[in-house]
Structure formats: structure tokens, C-alpha cells
């Protein structure tokens, strides 16, 4: 039992990095995620509480807000995704359960998604071929769920036209990575 080896979502020991022309794809295994859903009637109370515990305002639809240690992404009406640096299994979710007690339900999503950062010249051309979103119009902080190769993924713009993060379901990590790599090569 003690001989288990922790692997990243893409199957490596270290997070995978691909450099294809001017584009860089970087797998991230150092982030924690937890989804937050407001309890019925607690929608406004949750927004206020989030501002206190995440040091950032609750994002508006289609947006992501970056705080000092945590960022919040808008997932749906009265639903958010919280992200911070990984400090251990379930740490973020357990903290949020306490911090948001009574106003929200919290689910750990750290092992549900893998984040892949895509950056460099041509990233807009790459994503235009993979999603129906108007990627060229996305500004820093834009966040949306979208389909990439028929897989429901989350997409955040970190720097307009230059840097994006794709959050793919972990069970589809290799398929989505394959799509990103193959389309990057074909640009």
C-alpha cells in the first residue's frame, strides 16, 4: 500500500509542459478548487460572507475575481467556484464549510478538474477553433463554461489575447490536452 505513486491528471509525476511554436501549455497540479452553492434564501448573505472570507467581491455572471489568496469564479446563478493554492487534500473545502456554514453548500472539486494554462501568441486562434465563445473579445477576468471537443470545460481569460486557463474535467484531462496539442500543432 505504501508504494502508491501520486500522479498528475495527465499521468506524469511532474505536471506536464508542452511548448508548441509560440504557445505554452502548462498543467497545474498546485491549485485547490471547491464549488459553492447558496442555500435557498441565503443568496445575498452568501455574497456578503464571501467578500469577508475570500477578500474579494462575489463575481458577476461571466466573471472571475482574483483576491489576494483566493479567487472566485461565477459558475451559475448563486453558484461560485473558489480557487486557492493547494495546501492538502480537502483543506479548502473543509475551511469553506466552516466559513460558509448556514449560507452555502460546499463541494470539493480539486480532483474533479485539472487546470491547464495556455499562453502565448496564437492562443486566440487556438481557442477559436475549439470553442464557440468570442475568445478574441474576452478580457482579463472573463470566465465561462464552454464545450471543448464536446467536453464541458471552464475557460478563464488571464490576459486578453495572450493567456487563458482551461479547467477540464479530470476524467477527460488527456482528451482535452490532446485536442489542445493537436490544434496547436495545426495552427
Amino acid at each position, binding site marked *: 500500500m505504501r508504494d502508491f505513486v501520486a500522479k498528475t491528471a495527465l499521468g506524469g509525476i511532474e505536471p506536464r509542459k508542452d511548448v508548441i511554436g509560440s504557445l505554452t501549455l502548462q498543467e497545474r497540479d498546485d491549485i485547490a478548487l471547491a464549488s459553492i452553492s447558496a442555500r*435557498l*434564501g441565503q443568496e445575498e448573505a452568501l455574497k456578503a460572507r464571501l467578500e469577508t472570507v475570500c477578500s474579494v467581491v462575489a463575481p458577476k*455572471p*461571466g466573471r472571475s475575481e482574483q483576491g489576494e489568496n483566493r479567487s472566485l469564479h*461565477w*459558475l*451559475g*446563478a448563486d453558484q461560485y467556484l473558489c480557487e486557492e493554492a493547494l495546501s492538502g487534500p480537502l483543506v479548502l473545502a473543509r475551511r469553506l464549510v466552516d466559513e460558509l456554514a448556514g449560507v452555502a453548500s460546499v463541494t470539493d472539486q480539486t480532483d474533479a478538474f485539472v487546470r491547464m494554462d495556455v499562453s502565448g501568441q496564437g492562443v486566440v486562434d487556438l481557442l477559436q477553433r475549439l470553442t*464557440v465563445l468570442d475568445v478574441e473579445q474576452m478580457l482579463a477576468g472573463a470566465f*465561462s*463554461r*464552454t*464545450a471543448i471537443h464536446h467536453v*464541458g470545460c471552464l475557460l478563464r481569460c488571464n490576459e486578453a489575447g495572450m493567456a487563458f486557463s482551461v479547467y477540464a474535467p479530470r476524467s477527460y484531462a488527456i482528451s482535452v490536452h490532446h485536442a489542445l496539442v493537436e490544434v496547436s500543432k495545426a495552427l
Partner: protein
Amino acid sequence: MIINHPLLGPRDASEFTYLGDAALIERPDWQSETAQDEFHDYVYLRDNPAGTHRELWFHEQGDRSWLVVTRNTMTHEILATELARDVARKMGRGK
């Protein structure tokens, strides 16, 4: 076709899936005396208008919200979009 999402703005229709007549929100009370007849009508009978039609669309590849979309079935023009939960609440459904 572009659907103007009430929260997210204009989104491609390919992100949505279609369910059908928005009258499906008005599910009959199963404890009513006439429940059997009401459920017969609810399940089997639909209006099929040539013109304005209110229908349910699901934002499957987006925020997974249900919308009530008012669409002209002859021109495909979309006249209005609302969150289905807001429509249901206005009708006294849900909480």
C-alpha cells in the same frame, strides 16, 4: 441562431438543448381529484402554434440554467428570454 441569455448575454444556440413547450412548468397537483385527466392533458396535449411560442431551453454547455424562450416558430425570431426559475416563481411555483 443566437439566444440572448438573461445573465450571460448573447450565446450561440449550439450551447443549448431544447425541451419543449414552457407549459411543462405547470405540472398538475398529483393529489387533485381530477389528477388523472390533468396529467393526461399535461403529458399528451400540446399547442402547436404557427407564430409566437414559449418554450424551455437548457443552457447545457453554459451555466446549466433553464430558460423560457419566446420564439416565433415561423421566422425563428427570438422575442424574449427569461430564467425559468423566475417564471416559475412568478406563477407561485417553487420557493
